[in-house]
């Protein structure tokens, strides 16, 4: 094992070395920083040219200059890490250090959303292969796959931001809009549930009517300018989560599973008011962690007391129900600040911004309020997150569908069915778990590739992250800055490959790592 890891690490350094050498020379030979003096009429032009040649070491050929850059990286071994200075004389590591958190903030929600939605939709399409739902989702995923992100971004800015802000002036949904949304919702839910034709129509009708009533209520109560979930919304969502978790873990025929799930959901509702004490205006991130700790403890406790037999199953039901149901409680708290946020001077009743990563006009008082500050971050994240999610969603749908279909055609699935296991056990335990194995590789690699993928998104939405740094580096012929972005991205990619391989060996006992 040790030999394997050290060999892989050695290989990683060779690859990063080769790739960075290639990138350095490519960039050095394809850019000419002196071109800005081409039409210059300044008197001290010759002096400036000489200064730039000295500063950027332009008299040294790029292949040799590379090694003076490399020395800064190698210096990391004895604590003298140095990525050089940018053209504006700021250390590259400082610029990148500021940009990385911004990019992470931009992509992390979208990535998680895309993974969760994409994998679940992909698996459902695999289970309901060749159904209407499958065909529609296949088409949608191909369509999303073919969309350029900057095009989606412009559409989102127009329809999700500008027109939504206009809508908030008088938040009444047109009846036609309600009907169309309700029908769409009904179709999606009916597609998830599947089954025979008559069943399809009753589920479809039920879901559509439910959505219609909810939308009409939201429209009539002017919910969109004073949103909140309230105790009823939180309880309802907790019950939905409980049904989902029970369905996945124990099945609805298991009475104790139902006790654990619904017990936790009711406990969440009971905790709604006590937890508000932790969510005052002076709350911080620690309070949120404390809330999660309390709810998870409650869920596990309920799972623990439900039954002494198969305790782990019920604790798991309680845990996941509690975890999922805590989000509505916290979201509810954020939503209740919405009308104050929207009506503040800094926002001016147009809450969804089209550009930027934070509102610079917020007062210090507002910035100190965890909930308003968080809401500000959230509204700035809305558009980029939707755009990124839409784009990467499709890949996960296709991959999860293909992966689960391949597993479901395996002989061990046939064996599991022949043993008389329930369909739920066959699909969840034998099918989904095995289908998740190849996904680990993809997931790890995608996290590493995010920095590259955010270049366009950051440009469109004017975020000052790695993508912008890279953009400036190319436009200003800033070789050190360019290499800084490149080395981070390359290092993350090889690291991710390495971790994926190791992880694969851990999660899949069939894979043995060669000594």
């Amino acid at each position, binding site marked *: 094992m040790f030999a394997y890891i050290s060999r892989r690490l050695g290989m990683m350094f060779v690859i990063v070395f*080769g790739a960075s050498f290639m990138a350095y020379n490519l960039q050095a030979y394809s850019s000419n920083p002196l071109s800005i003096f081409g039409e210059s009429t300044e008197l001290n032009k010759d002096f400036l040219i000489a200064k730039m040649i000295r500063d950027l070491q332009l008299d040294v050929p790029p292949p040799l200059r590379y090694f003076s850059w490399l020395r800064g990286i190698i210096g990391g071994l004895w604590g003298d890490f140095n990525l050089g200075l940018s053209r504006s004389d700021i250390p590259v590591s400082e610029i990148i250090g500021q940009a990385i958190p911004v990019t992470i903030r931009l992509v992390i929600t979208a990535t998680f959303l895309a993974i969760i939605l994409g994998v679940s939709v992909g698996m459902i399409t695999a289970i309901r292969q060749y159904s209407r739902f499958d065909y529609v989702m296949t088409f949608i995923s191909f369509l999303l796959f*073919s969309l*350029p992100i900057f095009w989606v971004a412009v559409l989102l800015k127009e329809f999700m931001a500008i027109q939504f802000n206009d809508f908030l002036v008088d938040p009444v949904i047109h009846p036609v809009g309600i009907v169309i949304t309700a029908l769409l919702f009904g179709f999606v839910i009916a597609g998830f549930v599947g089954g025979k034709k008559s069943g399809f129509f009753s589920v479809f009708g039920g879901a559509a009517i439910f959505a219609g009533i909810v939308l009409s209520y939201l429209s009539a109560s002017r919910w969109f300018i004073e949103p909140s979930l309230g105790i009823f919304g939180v309880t309802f969502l907790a019950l939905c989560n409980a049904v989902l978790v029970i369905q996945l873990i124990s099945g609805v025929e298991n009475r104790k599973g139902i006790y654990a799930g619904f017990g936790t959901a009711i406990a969440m509702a009971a905790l709604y008011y006590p937890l508000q004490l932790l969510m005052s205006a002076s709350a911080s991130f620690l309070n949120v962690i404390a809330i999660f700790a309390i709810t998870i403890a409650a869920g596990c406790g309920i799972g623990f007391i439900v039954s002494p037999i198969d305790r782990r199953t019920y604790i798991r039901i309680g845990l996941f129900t509690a975890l999922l149901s805590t989000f509505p409680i916290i979201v509810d708290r954020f939503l209740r600040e919405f009308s104050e946020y929207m009506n503040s001077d800094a926002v001016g009743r147009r809450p969804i911004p089209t550009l930027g990563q934070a509102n610079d006009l917020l007062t210090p008082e507002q910035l100190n309020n965890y909930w308003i500050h968080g809401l500000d971050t959230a509204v700035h994240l809305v558009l980029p997150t939707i755009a990124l999610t839409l784009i990467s969603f499709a890949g996960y749908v296709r991959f999860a569908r293909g992966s689960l279909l391949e597993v479901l055609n395996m002989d061990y699935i046939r064996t599991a069915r022949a043993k008389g296991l329930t369909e739920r056990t066959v699909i969840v335990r034998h099918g989904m778990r095995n289908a998740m194995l190849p996904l680990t590789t993809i997931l790890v690699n995608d996290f590493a590739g995010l920095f*590259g993928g955010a270049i366009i998104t950051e440009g469109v939405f004017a975020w000052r992250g790695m993508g912008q740094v890279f953009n400036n580096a190319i436009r200003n012929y800033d070789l050190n800055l360019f290499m800084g972005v490149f080395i981070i991205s390359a290092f993350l990619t090889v690291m991710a490959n390495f971790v994926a391989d190791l992880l694969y060996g851990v999660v899949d006992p069939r894979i043995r790592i060669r000594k």
Partner: protein
Amino acid sequence: MSNVNQAAGSNPEKNENEIQSRDTVGLTQKQIIVKRFVKHKAAMGSLFGLIFIFIFVFTATGLQFGNSQNPTTVPGWWKFKITDIDPEGAIAASCNGGVTGCPTLDLAPSFLDGDGIRIGAHPFGTDIIGTDYFALVVRGAQQSILVMLIVGFLGIVLGTTIGAIAGFYGGLIDAVLMRLTDMFLVTPTLIIGSVIGYRFGNFGVIPLALLLGFFAWMGLARFVRTEFLTLREREFVDAARVAGASDRRIIFKHILPNAMGIIIVSGTLLASGAILAESALSYLGFGVKPPDVSLGLLISQYQDSFSISPWLFWWPGTLIVSIALFVNFIGDGLRDAFDPRQRRHISFKDRRNAKELNGKRP
């Protein structure tokens, strides 16, 4: 020849496989693949759609070779060129309270809005200074298709060569070539594309596409290598070797035809990715540069005028999306056609036939 036939013949059980294999009795592998592809409705529709777009855009404004300074052109059937400016036409086609250059295309018949079907002088409208937008969009689509073809071709040739050599010879050659592939692979395409595009974007689209293709072969090389690694251990390769075939003959006559499926499928995915990559680079300003046009560049130029003149934004976007979508669907159809393990949809009719065949419940 046909693995499917053999499998069915050696298996006396009349099972689901038999239902499927009855379709393919007496056909060669190539015929089976073509038949499967033709049956894939979405893929066939996309193929016709793509061919239509291809012919349409390449005959409309004619072709332009060479660089933008002294081009050689073949004339087309559309009256405007991207350099023609027609301010009177733009003013004539105003709408929505004085916005000039609205599309004159009207596909709604006269009983819907009373205007009747017409094409007009500028069916896609004009841009702000009065250039015919149809000509611009068509020119952009030509560039995109050109990039797609060049990158796809170059990626397939390079990827197949490197993957095949690495997979077939193994050992040191394999290790060296795969590390080389990894080196290219750790470099995000967009980063390398930006570097290339910023320098070579104004040389026209063909050099840009050639350079992009040079950095697009890695995924395909990996797939081909894996395929070659498995195929070279198969019996038919041993048989060929015993019969005295040279390495070259084994690679080209025995292994490559069997790896064709994965090559074609990854090639199409590469091509659709290339369209999006080119438009993204042009959008960022690292790709095709004015006065030449590309679809990504058009979107980037007019993204801020969406609320006033939305057509400047819709037409190029729709074309990018439809070309990429068609290519993706063709790729999907090809994957289904080439994959022998692919379980085809067994309809109720097939099941009923199978029941009759068996005389018992399947």
